[in-house]
């Protein structure tokens, strides 16, 4: 059930009613409903370097997780090059990070998911899974200490041990709110 507040007051005309509905009711529904926060649809790979490269970024509005128990689910998928470079995939919410070492020597698709939940105004718990080809990567977990009233970013990064571009490509990432 959505905790949508009741609207009080009596509108005087249609225009005022529209304004009330748009600014109060609809925004309240939109802010309280579970679902898609954002999606990054441009396929991006790591650069020809050995540094950690941002593949997808999604900006979060402050206080998106405003009640303990609310959470976010970040999902992403892509593919890797078939070479022996070490390939590290990371999923972030603010400074909370889950790291997965993908298979080397595997030109295969990968799929990863991170769930993060608010436990306090500045504390979070997170866990995630990843699969790469036919391999289930060991799940990861972490605790977060980001201040949720601040501006945070969810992102997906890729890093290769050799300066080969597109060792890790992220085709798509999207973020859902769980509330």
């Amino acid at each position, binding site marked *: 059930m959505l905790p949508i507040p009741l609207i009080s007051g009596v509108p005087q005309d*249609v225009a005022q009613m529209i304004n009330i*509905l748009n600014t109060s009711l609809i925004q309240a529904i939109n802010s309280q*409903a579970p679902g*898609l*926060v954002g*999606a990054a649809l441009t396929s991006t790979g790591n650069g020809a370097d050995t540094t950690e490269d941002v593949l997808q970024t999604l900006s979060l509005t402050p206080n998106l997780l405003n009640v303990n128990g609310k959470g976010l689910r970040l999902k992403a998928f*892509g593919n890797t090059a078939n070479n022996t470079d070490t390939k590290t995939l990371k999923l972030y919410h603010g400074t909370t990070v889950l790291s997965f070492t993908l298979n080397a020597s595997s030109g295969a698709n990968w799929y990863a998911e991170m769930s993060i939940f608010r436990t306090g105004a500045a504390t979070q718990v997170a866990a995630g899974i990843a699969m790469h080809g*036919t391999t289930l990567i060991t799940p990861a977990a972490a605790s977060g200490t980001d201040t949720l009233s601040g501006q945070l970013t969810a992102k997906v990064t890729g890093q290769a041990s050799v300066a080969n571009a597109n060792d890790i490509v992220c085709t*798509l990432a*999207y973020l859902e709110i769980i509330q």
Partner: protein
Amino acid sequence: MGYNPIPYDQDPAQWINSCINCIAFSSVAAKGNGADTTEDILQTFTLPANFLNWPTLQFNQATGQVIGLPIGVVNSIAGTGLRMKAWGVTANNADTKTLKLYHGALSFSFALNTNTAAAWIAEMIVMRASATTQIAMASVQHATTLIAPQQSTSGSDTLANSLVAKITGQASASNANDIVCNGAIVELIT
């Protein structure tokens, strides 16, 4: 959440429901492939026009009605998507068993294990990239085997049209119920 224009026409509850993440369709009627070697539909869902392509709506103060723009005339909520999950079992024989997941003309094909009577679970995510393009991925687990996930950036269905999401099964020998789908759901990501 957030980005769908929710109007206040005669049935706002219906619109709100249609905009919130939810199970849009489901079936728990178990169905297996027939005693043939053709591709058989195990579950099918007819998605309404604009299922991932919400039309922009406008309130007409003169008439008090909500006006929808003609089908296919924009609204750009790129990222709106759906998630289809399906599950079932396979027969313990040596027949080749092919499971396919469809969204419109986009499909993913998985070869399930042979010689194992075991449960399988499949997931397909389709995201709207534009009114006529989709990005999608799918994964399947069969017993303890993780079958390699697949993806596509070339979905080209026109989302203004009604589309079919379905699960099919095909066996290499004419044995019924080589692949049984016990249920499936289609969830909106919006």
